[in-house]
């Protein structure tokens, strides 16, 4: 079966209630969504998968609300962002997530040292800074898209990026990455 565009797949889900089309969307976007959560939770795979699952369920339930004003991936990442911050608020564990990062490192992959470094570096950032930094440097979104995903205005995003990058640069220098 030829690969359909996101809009065609969303239409099939919204109008014809075609679950196979939604299956294709999940397969296509599971990696970026789960990676986004892994970076926000500093490597907590179980929590990341739970939040990613909740994100896709919310996307499915609200798929008729997708108007195509932005790309499907931006719309999905906005849901992911809201799911993450709802979870943080409901657990009231923002501080725990920030401080317990070193304990929760993922350990089942070959490049775990790099992941540890990235998560340790991300742990130095405030949640909003971390979100902006990962959306730009890992997920590759431009500032206007980050603004749409997070609901912050462009200048707030820019200042989070600036502060976050300064902290990252200091961390990398302290750990000998500038040599």
């Amino acid at each position, binding site marked *: 079966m030829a690969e359909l565009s996101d809009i065609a797949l969303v239409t099939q889900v919204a109008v014809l*209630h075609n679950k196979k089309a939604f299956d294709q969307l999940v397969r296509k976007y599971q990696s970026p969504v789960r*990676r986004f959560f892994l*970076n926000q939770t500093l490597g907590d795979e179980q929590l990341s998968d739970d939040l990613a699952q909740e994100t896709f369920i919310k996307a499915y339930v609200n798929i008729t609300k997708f108007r195509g004003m932005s790309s499907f991936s931006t719309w999905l990442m906005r849901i992911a962002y809201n799911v993450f911050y709802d979870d943080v608020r409901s657990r009231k564990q923002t501080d725990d997530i920030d401080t317990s990062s070193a304990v929760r490192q993922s350990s089942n992959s070959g490049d775990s040292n790099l992941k540890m*470094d990235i998560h340790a570096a991300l742990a130095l950032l405030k949640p909003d800074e971390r979100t902006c930094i990962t959306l730009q*440097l890992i997920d590759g979104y431009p500032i206007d898209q980050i603004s749409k995903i997070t609901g912050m205005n462009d200048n707030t995003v820019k200042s989070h990026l600036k502060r976050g990058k300064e902290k990252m*640069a200091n961390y990398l220098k302290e750990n000998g990455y500038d040599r």
Partner: protein
Amino acid sequence: MTDKDNIMIEEFFKQAAQQQIEDNGFTERVMKSLPETSAERVRRLSRLWTIFCGVVGVVLFFVFGGWQILQGLFYGGMRMMLGWLEVLLVTAPTTEISVNPWVVLLLLAFVLIFLPYQIARKLYVIQ
């Protein structure tokens, strides 16, 4: 922040940006846990209602002797048709009626080609 710092940060995140997470059954888990939407609930109830009505119809058909009623209707219809034909033949005009063959052809084309085409087109569009 210098350009060197920016390059260093981009290099640091480069590998993380290329990381692809294997599905490993995630999609199946999501698909299994999807809730029933209101539209799906309506569709399911509608299907159940159709089945219920069908079953009630079949039961009533046998309870009230549906075959006899159908037979009666069939033979009654046959008798009525024969009666109508008889009346038509007896009272048919003896003078010739002129029929325009083009009109007949047009009517035939409308009934045999255009109507089936329209129906097929609408069915195709709906599907």
